[in-house]
């Protein structure tokens, strides 16, 4: 009896321990909310994020050779490919890849790198929020 109890107790603890690993530091919606706060602070006439504007931004070039979609493709629900090295890039849309936009350090690192590569500058909270709003509309 005690043995059965101890085994099931052990399994329960292990299960809880393992499932905790799936908890993310933040969700994409948290990020959207904090970008909104930032945008409101920086822009007196901020009027919210637009998925349509985000999509246009994502697919267009901004003076350099690359757009966001050069690597992430025109469909953020599929696996992308690094424009230079061909290395596969996991899908960017959170609906398809639940890890996306959950790690603040990764978000900071990649926005800085990719905005510099595509625009030669950092992105504004408005631009980041528009793109995220667009990515969150993708469902497949």
């Amino acid at each position, binding site marked *: 009896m*005690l*043995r059965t109890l*101890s085994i099931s*107790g*052990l399994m329960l*603890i*292990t299960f809880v*321990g393992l499932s*905790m*690993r799936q*908890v*993310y*530091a933040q969700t994409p919606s948290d990020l959207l909310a904090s970008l909104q706060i930032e945008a409101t602070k920086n822009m007196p006439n901020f009027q919210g994020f637009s998925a349509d504007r985000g999509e246009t931004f994502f697919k267009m070039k901004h003076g350099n050779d690359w757009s966001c979609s050069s690597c992430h493709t025109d469909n953020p629900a599929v696996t992308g490919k*690094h424009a*230079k*090295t*061909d*290395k596969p890039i996991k899908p960017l849309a959170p609906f398809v890849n639940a890890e996306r936009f959950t*790690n603040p*350090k*990764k978000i900071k*690192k990649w926005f*800085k*790198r*990719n905005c*510099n*590569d595509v625009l030669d500058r950092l992105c504004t909270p408005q631009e980041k929020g528009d793109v995220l709003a667009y990515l969150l509309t993708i469902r497949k």
Partner: protein
Amino acid sequence: MLKDIRNYQWLLAVVALTMIISVPAVYADDDDDDDFQSSSRNSVMSSSQVGDDTKSRDRSKNGSRVLVTNEKWKDECGACHMAYPARFLSAESWRVMMTGLDNHFGSDASLDAATATEISDFLQQNASRKKRKSANGIEPALRISETRWFKSEHDEVAARVWKSPKVKSPSNCAACHTKAESGSFRERDIKMPK
């Protein structure tokens, strides 16, 4: 019965310890500043199928070469391209490269300071002990494919192979070196794309 209880307590202690160890990963699964594991991150991989340049060092007991790896090196360098073995360049080359990551061959590959330092130290500690001189006279060589060593190792490769869309660039080791990712560049593992 008493034995059962002791057994249970012992198992519980092990589980509790495992969970304590794994907790930092819950909140920061790719935490760049996470020092928790960094002291023991360098490790040695696949002793039987590695090697190319060093003749006497980096060998396991049975004489085969080993690939020295580091978790952050693998994650960060390997995010955009193959994580090239440290022994492909000299320590000076790695030092210079790791101070210019904000313009890394035309791309922004910047890292936070702690991660950059760890990777830089790892690369320099395991760098080639040979000079790895640049073929174009500009020292230190930053592109592996522009070292004299690389060029002499590949002097038998026909121009049409380099131009193949499956190769695309000399930086694409795995196009021909089928086990490049695990550190093996032996002749027997080479398969030219058709």
